């Protein structure tokens, strides 16, 4: 099992969710986050006081999937979240030791 974590542009969330559903991903967790990468922030100006806003709003998606599905998931996110402009985000993949469904106690791939 692998945890696929993707940081994407907020307005791309629905596209990414659809593309993941299509390849059989059963569930994802979404968090609104802020951060910075190579995409620069922006400046705000209030009565002459200038503020540089470094942290931009992004959406973080987390999905735990079976090892065999990982490449497809990466491909689906890469395609659906891509705008070609700077700031599209990144995908990270982690190993997952165990997964348990709380309701039934099922574990491993059955719990996904």
């Amino acid at each position, binding site marked *: 099992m692998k945890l696929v974590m993707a940081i994407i542009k907020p307005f791309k969330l629905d596209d990414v969710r659809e593309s993941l559903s299509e390849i059989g991903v059963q569930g994802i967790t979404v968090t609104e986050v802020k951060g910075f990468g190579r995409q620069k922030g922006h400046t*705000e*100006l*209030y*009565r*002459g*006081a200038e*503020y540089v*806003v470094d942290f931009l709003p992004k959406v973080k998606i987390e999905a735990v999937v079976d090892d065999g599905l990982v490449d497809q998931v990466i491909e689906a996110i890469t395609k659906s979240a891509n705008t070609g402009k700077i700031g599209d985000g990144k995908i990270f993949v982690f190993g997952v030791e165990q997964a348990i469904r709380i309701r039934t106690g099922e574990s491993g791939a059955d719990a996904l």
Partner: protein
Amino acid sequence: MKKSLSIVLTLFGLLGISSTSFAADATLSAGDTAWMLTSTALVLFMTIPGLALFYGGMVRKKNVLGTMMQSFAITALVTIIWMVIGYSLAFAEGGSFVGGLSKMFLKDMTVSGLSGTIPESVFMTFQMTFAIITPALIAGAFADRMKFSAMLWFMGIWSIVVYSPITHWVWGPGGWLGGMGILDFAGGTVVHINAGVAGLVAALVLGKRLGYGKEAMPPHNLTLTIMGAAMLWVGWFGFNAGSELAADGRAGMAMVVTQVATAAAALGWMFAEWMSKGKPSVLGIASGAVAGLVAITPASGFVGPMGALAIGVVAGVVCFWAATSLKNMLGYDDSLDAFGVHAIGGIVGAILTGVFAVKDIGGTAGLLEGNPGQVWTQIIGVGATILYTAVASFIILKVVDVVIGLRVSDDQEREGLDLALHGERVE
């Protein structure tokens, strides 16, 4: 109705029952009274909710309740002070500097007593709403850092020691600035220069907010601010056109020039900002509108539409410069620009009133009609107001500081006034 009322009043007069202290010959005008009842409500509407929203949106979220609380509490506090002594010190017979104590507790106010053509009760309440908004304006200068208790003490004393005397100078019976012929229709000196300068002094005495110039302190919700500015704009018709104290042609002219100057200043600020900073901001156009309202306040009732246009444009551009450049040059932390908008706008308006006054409108000619002396009279009025309010505000602040302390602790300031002072917060 009008006739029967005047007959009744005349009868009272003949029987010696009427106890009105002035304007004994006048009769009540239902039209004037109706307009002044309306104007009074409009001016109160400027402070709550107008100013509370205007200021509340500009502070950080942790201070929004504390800021709105200031407007609301000042409204209640000054109402009582005005009833007890403020009205008397401003409008009772007295010297040239301050009125007497004969109207304390409104003790001679009767249901039939008149002030001009309106009930004295209406006149007193109308003036009360001016006494309320003036200290409430000051609060913008020290937003985010003053103790609530110190704020109440300062505002209460300031209302008695500064607001009432200056009102007496300009509008009270025997006031020395009024006697000199100063033109201040609705409170350029009394309200705006007075509040703006007191605000600057307060900002200097209290010192800057923690992290000023280092941390970002953007307004937390400009939708509140633009709504508040819109309410100020609407309410200001009561402020300016109401200051005629009658429903007549001069009130109508005051309304026209108020609208024209406000629009011109809103555009003036907007275009100045657009050209120099790249974008026309919402806060900018709202601030410009308020600057225009401030500047036309002394002039309404004296100038015509073209004068209003000029006053508005100048106020918009000059106040933009004051709030964005002057403040940074001098380095004071006037959090919400009480000085940059109200004092600077008030000074621009007061002096330009002397330039653009039209004899046919207000009975006094200005510089453009060949009366340069009026500009000098206006400058004396501006100077006297600045000097008195600056010195008196400084002394009051220092006394309150020694007795109970002006500023919240650093921890309270970081936590935010809402939670630290009022035990509440906005999520």
